[in-house]
């Protein structure tokens, strides 16, 4: 924050030409500004400190201990938990699962959502109704969605019964086959998040000036060219929002995993880092170790999100 205010220089009448104008600096009193800041900013800062910074600091503190609430006393172990994580195969698997899940959940709803938004960017009751249809899953609880899809994708559920009806003798075990389970899980998440991406892209499309489209059309640009040269660049903010929101929600995914697969089938096939953190902390009672996992997860999410945000925002400026 700039503290000094420079007053405009005013030439003094009658002074000789060539002399530099005299600049007068005036310092505003500090106390009123501090009071001003405190009265407006303090509640927000306090809430942020209590609900975000303090828990992170406490978690970091725990991560340097062997804290197990059921096996006192607590001992300081330095970076031992972090060192163990480097060699923990289960954590590496969770990292891999989270990465795959994140890539799918970021890419698929964005691509499909954009296509649907382009198709729905028209006026009329049918399009309004379809927008409602696509957005409905977003307002459902993730647990409800998980339970519904668990039933649908059961080995003897409606999906496989339909496939059998179509002549598929051995339909896949969508949630029971380790080769399919992660992708089934990702598909369910994509299905629910799709509506969000559609709405954000629709909002972005509303902001594309019609004149630009018409000008491009007059210049001979076809639909694809118009999309590439006019629409897509102007959708950059929508892409940024969708990507960052999907990225963060995929990284911290727990609810779907817990209800649909419980991290299985088997060991770790669908266990995300968030799932492992909670299982380690609350089932195995290794709160110190789980805190170290949570800190690593926090840093990963923060760094990746910052990089992605930076790249997308730079793209917005370039365009």
């Amino acid at each position, binding site marked *: 924050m700039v503290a000094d205010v420079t007053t405009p220089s005013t030439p003094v009448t009658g002074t000789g030409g060539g002399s530099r104008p005299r600049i007068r600096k005036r310092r505003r009193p500090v106390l009123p500004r501090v009071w001003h800041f405190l009265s407006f900013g303090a509640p927000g800062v306090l809430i942020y400190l209590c609900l975000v910074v303090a828990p992170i600091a406490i978690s970091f503190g725990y991560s340097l201990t062997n804290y197990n609430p059921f*096996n006192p006393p607590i001992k300081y172990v330095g970076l031992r938990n972090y060192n163990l994580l480097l060699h923990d195969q289960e954590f590496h698997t969770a990292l891999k699962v989270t990465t795959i899940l994140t890539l799918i959940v970021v890419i698929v709803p964005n691509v499909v959502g954009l296509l649907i938004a382009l198709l729905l960017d028209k006026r009329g009751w049918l399009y309004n109704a379809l927008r409602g249809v696509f957005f409905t899953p977003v307002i459902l609880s993730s647990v409800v969605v998980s339970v519904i899809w*668990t039933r649908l994708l059961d080995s003897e559920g409606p999906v496989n019964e339909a496939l059998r009806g179509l002549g598929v003798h051995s339909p896949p075990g969508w949630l029971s086959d380790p080769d399919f389970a992660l992708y089934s899980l990702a598909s369910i998440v994509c299905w629910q998040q799709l509506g969000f991406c559609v709405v954000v892209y629709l909002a972005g499309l509303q902001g594309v000036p019609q004149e630009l489209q018409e000008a491009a059309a007059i210049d001979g640009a076809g639909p694809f060219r118009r999309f590439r040269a006019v629409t897509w660049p102007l959708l950059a903010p929508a892409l940024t929002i969708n990507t960052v929101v999907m990225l963060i929600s995929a990284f911290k995914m727990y609810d779907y995993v817990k209800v649909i697969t419980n991290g299985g089938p088997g060991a770790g096939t669908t266990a995300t880092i968030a799932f492992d953190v909670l299982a380690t902390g609350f089932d195995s009672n290794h709160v110190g170790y789980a805190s170290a996992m949570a800190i690593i997860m926090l840093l990963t999410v923060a760094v990746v999100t910052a990089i992605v945000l930076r790249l997308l925002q730079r793209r917005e400026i370039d365009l």
Partner: protein
Amino acid sequence: MKRRSLLALGPAAVLAGGLASCSVKDNTSPSGGSSSGSGSVSGDITFLTFETPNLNAAYWDAAIKRVTDKNPGIKVKKLVSPTADGRTDYAKQLLQSGQFPDVMIAVSPAGFAEAGNLYAWQPAELSAFVFPTANPIKGKYYQLPANTQTIPPIYYNKKVFTDAGIAATPKTWADLLDASSKLKAKGITPFVTGGGKDGFASSMILAGLVSVDIYGKTPDWLTQRRADKVKFSDANFVAVLAKFADLASKGYIDKAAVSRDYASTEQAFLDQKGAMYPMGNWFASSADGKHPFDIGIFNFPTSDGSLVVPAYTGGGMIVSAKAKSLDAAKAFALAFQTDKAQLDASVKSDGLFPAIKGYQLPTDVGPVFKAGYDLYTEGVQKNAVVHTFRWETADDGLLPGMADKVDQAAEDLTTGRKSPADAAAFLDSEWAKAS
């Protein structure tokens, strides 16, 4: 071995219950003897319960009322766990947030006890229980050993067995494989298993196998595992894992079932999607309901046909050591667990075998429950009861978090993702992490 000798005392108490009926409190008669029914204790307590379709709000309210009617000085505030399976985790959360309940039912004492959060019952207070020394934690007893559950007997579809030409229920592992082969040849999936969010449904057969093959010969195997004298990767344990994997590789277990939750698994058996259903004896309450086929029950087969009955005794109440009205909490817990009407209700609703001296079953229990109870009683008489692997909760139980790992190993063996040796190595590795 200690467990066996303790259980050997059981028949005298269980079978001669009618003669010794001095511990079960009947609603119709004034209670006496222990502090449980004195009626003179007073105080406000919180009581953590959980709800299931069988054990609903009305069940708990009626049970609490029966006790408070006899102990008017005790005021009970009922708490309900958000999920039935997550009640122990919920108790952990309440402890962490300074709201640890005064009394909890069917919450595992492991961890709470070691950290000094639970009241250790004195021998005199446990005099009403058949197995007062069940589930010791560092030599003390924190959970009222209120009931016994056999885990897992095998329920079977009698008609399907008859149709497949299976004349007698399997007693040996070879018999079981033979029966499975005949069922498979008829196009029937031999076993109904589950998994998904209820992982225990995937490891029932493995739990039975380890119990009869390992604990049948070495009852204190898990105590030895805690002392690092044995490992999961020892040849005898790997052989058990191989037996289980063999069932899956032969198609006797449906691989797709590993994503099926407990409720759907039970329904699958009742819908005749398979011939045999290895499950705890609590299934008897459903098995005695209306079905288009008759359900039978037999003990989990052993290698040589000898009788080994895996069971778990515990499941009762635990009391917070820091309860404001500790006497009221203790009195409530003891009165609740020994109330005849409550015990009868638990038999009918949850298929439990009350382990209370002098208790006699209601005369109108169903045939499947009765058959399961008779199998257990025979096991007690012949000193053939062992702990059930994965379900133990005390010093000789799995380390916290390991039960889930056992379920995962069972699922990996079922799907063929891990070999028996790999599954054993996985369990050893997870054990090291949990230690």
